[in-house]
């Protein structure tokens, strides 16, 4: 009988394997979440008064027209049958056609999802360094005049609604100075990347609201970490300040903040309604609003699933990043 041996490679692989298991588990959970979201969206639309048929024919059509439309759309069949059919098609990648316009949902949603994600990505790329920079800067000078001024500025920014910020930006940069477009519309066939200038004001408007929140989060963490003994010891040992920040403060302050930042991404993808309305930006949020008002289940389902999928993936990514940056959590549990 030999004693059980532990192979060295197994020790090395353990964190990777537990990480893989975590990812697999989270992806599986994600799929369940998507299923639940689709069921909730479907049920909610069923419970709302009226349906796509009455919304489509409008206020001046008689009951006969609504009945005709209902038959045409297949809404006269039982709800479970309709949901099952939708689910079976969706699993195979077919999201159906809009009840309202008869256009394939993929056609309606694809370009707008791309626009929304571009908007979210550009905002995020600017948001992270700005929020972290401001948070660290203020946090390291806790209680100083700079910190208080910064905190006051941030509080002011948080309290100004997006549509006010956006309206002022339009007034100044589009109508008065005439250097940027007032409305971010795209001609047929054009994409956001062909006209990066249309992103400027929407991104700045989104940043105005989100930087403040995130900088506050980072600042609070930095204040906590800066009071830590390790940081004090490093400083007393004469470690240069930039190294203190990079080596001690940031690694400790960032990991808990990252998942919170990740949440904003999903919000930016599907929840930028004010910005989309204000700037006429062709994104997903307005599709969701129009679709819900028209009881257009296939369209609403597609948008809800895209936003839910982005939320699941980004949160997973945020957690993984948090783990990667947190030495303690890199050890398998």
């Amino acid at each position: 009988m030999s004693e059980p041996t532990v192979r060295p490679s197994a020790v090395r692989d353990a964190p990777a394997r537990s990480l893989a298991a975590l990812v697999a588990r989270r992806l599986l959970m994600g799929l369940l979440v998507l299923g639940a979201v689709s069921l909730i969206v479907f049920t909610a639309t069923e419970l709302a008064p009226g349906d796509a048929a009455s919304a489509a024919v409008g206020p001046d059509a008689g009951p006969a027209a609504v009945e005709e439309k209902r038959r045409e759309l297949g809404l006269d069949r039982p709800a479970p049958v309709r949901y099952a059919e939708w689910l079976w098609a969706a699993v195979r990648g077919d999201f159906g056609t809009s009840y309202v316009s008869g256009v394939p949902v993929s056609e309606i949603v694809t370009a707008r999802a791309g626009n929304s994600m571009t908007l979210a990505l550009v905002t995020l790329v600017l948001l992270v360094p700005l929020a972290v920079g401001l948070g660290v800067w203020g946090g390291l000078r806790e209680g100083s005049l700079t910190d208080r001024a910064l905190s006051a500025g941030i509080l002011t920014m948080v309290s100004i609604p997006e549509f006010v910020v956006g309206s002022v930006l339009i007034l100044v940069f589009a109508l008065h100075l005439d250097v940027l477009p007032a409305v971010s519309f795209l001609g047929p066939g054009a994409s956001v990347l062909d006209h990066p200038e249309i992103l400027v004001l929407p991104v700045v408007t989104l940043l105005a609201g989100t930087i403040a929140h995130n900088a506050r989060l980072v600042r609070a963490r930095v204040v906590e970490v800066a009071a830590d003994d390790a940081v004090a010891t490093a400083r007393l040992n004469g470690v240069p300040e930039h190294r203190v920040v990079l080596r001690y403060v940031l690694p400790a302050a960032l990991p808990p903040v990252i998942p919170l930042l990740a949440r904003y991404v999903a919000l930016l993808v599907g929840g930028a309604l004010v910005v989309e309305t204000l700037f006429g930006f062709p994104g997903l949020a307005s599709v969701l609003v129009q679709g819900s008002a028209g009881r257009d289940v296939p369209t609403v389902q597609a948008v809800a699933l895209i936003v839910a999928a982005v939320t699941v993936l980004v949160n997973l990514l945020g957690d993984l990043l948090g783990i990667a940056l947190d030495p303690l959590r890199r050890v398998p549990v």
Partner: protein
Amino acid sequence: MREFEGRPSRRSLLRITAGLGAGVALGGALTACGGDGEPGPSTDGAGSATPGPKRGGRLRAAFIGGSNETDNVLMAANTPIDYVRARVVYDELCVVGPEGRVQMQLAESIEPSADGKEWTIRVRDGVTFHDGRALTAADVLFSLRTYAEDQANQGPLLVDADLAAGRQVDKLTCTIPMRRAHGFFDLVLTQGFFVIPDGTTDFTKTPGSGPFVLKEHRVGQGAVLERNPNYWSDKGPYLDELELVSIADGEARLNALKAGQVEYAASISLVAGQTERGNSAVQLLTPPKWEWPNFGAMLKRNQDPFTDARVVQALKHAVDREQMVERVTLGFGEVGNDLFGKHLPHYAEDLPQREYDPDRAKALLRKAGVDKLSLSLRTSDYEYGLTEGAVVLAEQVKRTGIDIAVDKVPAADFFADPKVFIGAHFQSANRKPRPLPLDVLFFYGSDALLPFTGVGGDPVDGLVDAVRSALTEEQRAAAVGDMQHYLYDKGGDLVWAKAPVLAAATPQVRGVQSLGYPTFPSFRDAYLA
């Protein structure tokens, strides 16, 4: 709160039938507001025909569109931008011209037989579709039959036409028998029936015969249209290119105009209109008065307490219409007189303006034996003016001792259930004008498609029949007049004001015509001065 106009799709008879009527004086052109903000004709506005249209150029116009847009010509009323596009790509047999009478477009003549039991349509010679096919009477029959089959759209309007029995007489002529004598089938044909080629199966890629050819369309973004070099009329089109862009929010459309991104911005709020009144860089456009929507409320006459005519009369006298014009239409509108069709032919001008008279209202209620009248008014933010009017009404009637609770339902739910919407006891209305004979058939009598006020039976059904079967202009004027007199006294419509749908344009834009649809005007004769 900002208004978000990406509302439920209104692929509805509302859009299709919304207010075709008379284009007074300027043939339905949108007229520019004067410098003093008074809407009215102007010599240099969009309605001006002098010094003559200039050819060439590209016009960009912003409309409400969004993810509900469709290329399907039969569903053109899905969003305003779809309808505006269809109006220049396709032709109709006829449209409503000056004085609310029929103006021919593709048709050369549309005439009834002596007894009104058959109508003969003759189309122009030499018209070709964008794919080169020549227009014939077969295309007319095919188009009307296609629309008639679709009960969810304009089908119900063609109920009296026996299209299956319609036949082509020669290349350009066809006849359509009626199921009962019909005196204004030509007026029915002005209600958005586009003519498409016989045998069309894919209604999303249907060629039209209109002044512009669709070059490109992207749902939710917009469309580019080029002038049709083979257009049958020697008058238009004047623009080389027309670009329609989709911007959901009214404020954003106006900003795009002011920033030079577009030359025309549709559906501007009255508040924005007030702000831009003095701005020389912005031309405010108002449609002719007959096209202005009617603000008011509808009472079910066959439900208590409205079965008592004195209660209804009391409410009509409890409304201060002047104040409604001031507070709800922000001074842009004019007072209503509890009737639809003001400024249209056959409108009962002889009826006196109903006055605000709280004492008389109180006396009428006393006579009816009503001590305390408490009502609930169903309303919504679906369109501007509904909730605003309801709130002001509730305030006004307090002076008469009437208590109105404003029951505001979400915009998307307002007409979601036809039974609730049509069956409502007392609810806000913003009704789009349409030629009076059509209006009568739609809303009154036992066969009404939308019996909002529950007015039917004797003598209403007889009055409605008289309107339908009137063959001569004199007969029609008399029949509509009788109906209006009846409704003024016994109807359940409260109409307190009319107010314009505003649009804005750069000072160079000319020749945009609303032709009955102020929210989606025709650009076929538009040009840049």
